[in-house]
């Protein structure tokens, strides 16, 4: 790691802050109260169940903390969170089960 020069840091941070705001504001800001077409709504219903799994699948399969290799303990944690979340419908229970299974698996595998 090399130190980040101040000018580089501030220009990058301001650009990322502004760009991120524009992404978030895009549809909320431009479209306002106009209704969305039906096909768009049909696709948008599946935003959460598509984007979050796409984001998370590589993080689970090849976690950076395990050097980008498949890690059985982290797979067990993710599987526990998935099962508990899907069957109980409770988010927090799924987090606790997932981290609990991960710690248990790490302890078992030493």
């Amino acid at each position, binding site marked *: *790691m090399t130190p*980040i020069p101040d000018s580089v840091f501030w220009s*990058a941070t301001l650009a990322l802050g502004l760009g991120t705001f524009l*992404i978030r504001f895009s549809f909320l800001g431009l479209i*306002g109260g106009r209704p969305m077409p039906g096909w768009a709504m049909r696709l948008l219903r599946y935003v959460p*169940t*598509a984007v979050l799994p796409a984001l998370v699948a590589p993080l689970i399969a090849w976690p950076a903390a395990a050097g980008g290799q498949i890690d059985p303990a982290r797979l067990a944690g993710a599987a526990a969170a998935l099962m508990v*979340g899907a069957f109980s419908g409770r988010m927090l229970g799924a987090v606790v089960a997932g981290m609990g299974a991960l710690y248990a698996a790490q302890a078992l595998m030493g």
Partner: protein
Amino acid sequence: MRTRGAFVEGVAAGAPFLLVILPFGALFGVVATEAGLDLMQTFALTSLVIAGASQFALVQMLSDGAPAALAVLTALAVNLRMAMYSASLTPHLGKAPLWVRALAAYFLVDQAYAAAIARYSRRPDEPLPRKIAFYFGVLLPVVPVWFLGTLAGATLGARIPPEYALDFAVPITFVAIVAPMLRSLPNLAAAFVASAAALALAWAPYGSGLLLASAAGMGAGAAVELALERRRPAPEAQDERRNAA
């Protein structure tokens, strides 16, 4: 005040996130400090961007000596999913005053989106002021805790021992958010196709694989929904057909 109840329900919906946001924020504070950022820089980054994954990406790339423009573009690609959140919330919050929409957009984090869309899907006809109150209620335990966690990590500066595997708090949280939604065939299809595509596209430049895989998942969900409707038409659809005949 008739919106107070919705605000309190929002706070209750946001509160569980606190348990993962605090350590995640602290982890970012530690990482940023180790990369040589001072307290003010760390706080500026975390409060101007409020998107953990992209903040990690930016700090990682800048301290690897990557060009600033490339680091910013990569971090923005990580955040592009939020355009989809923005679009998905628009049917519910689109009629709010501009300044409310701007404020809601500034704080549109994953957790706020997940909690809000779950509520709006359950109660699509709830009045706008209550939808707004719920949204900002969710933010109350989420955003300040993200700031506090970052500051704590940056000031304590202490390494969080790797055996706590806090790196995995983030993926676990995302799984925990999605799992309760996987109770219909279209949602299962969306999640399965999106994960499989994301794994298959892991070679693609960071962010682009995510976008393609998300689009594939959304398409799969919509296609399965359409197929199910065709096989078993909804009552309104049957009426329309009868009228047309």
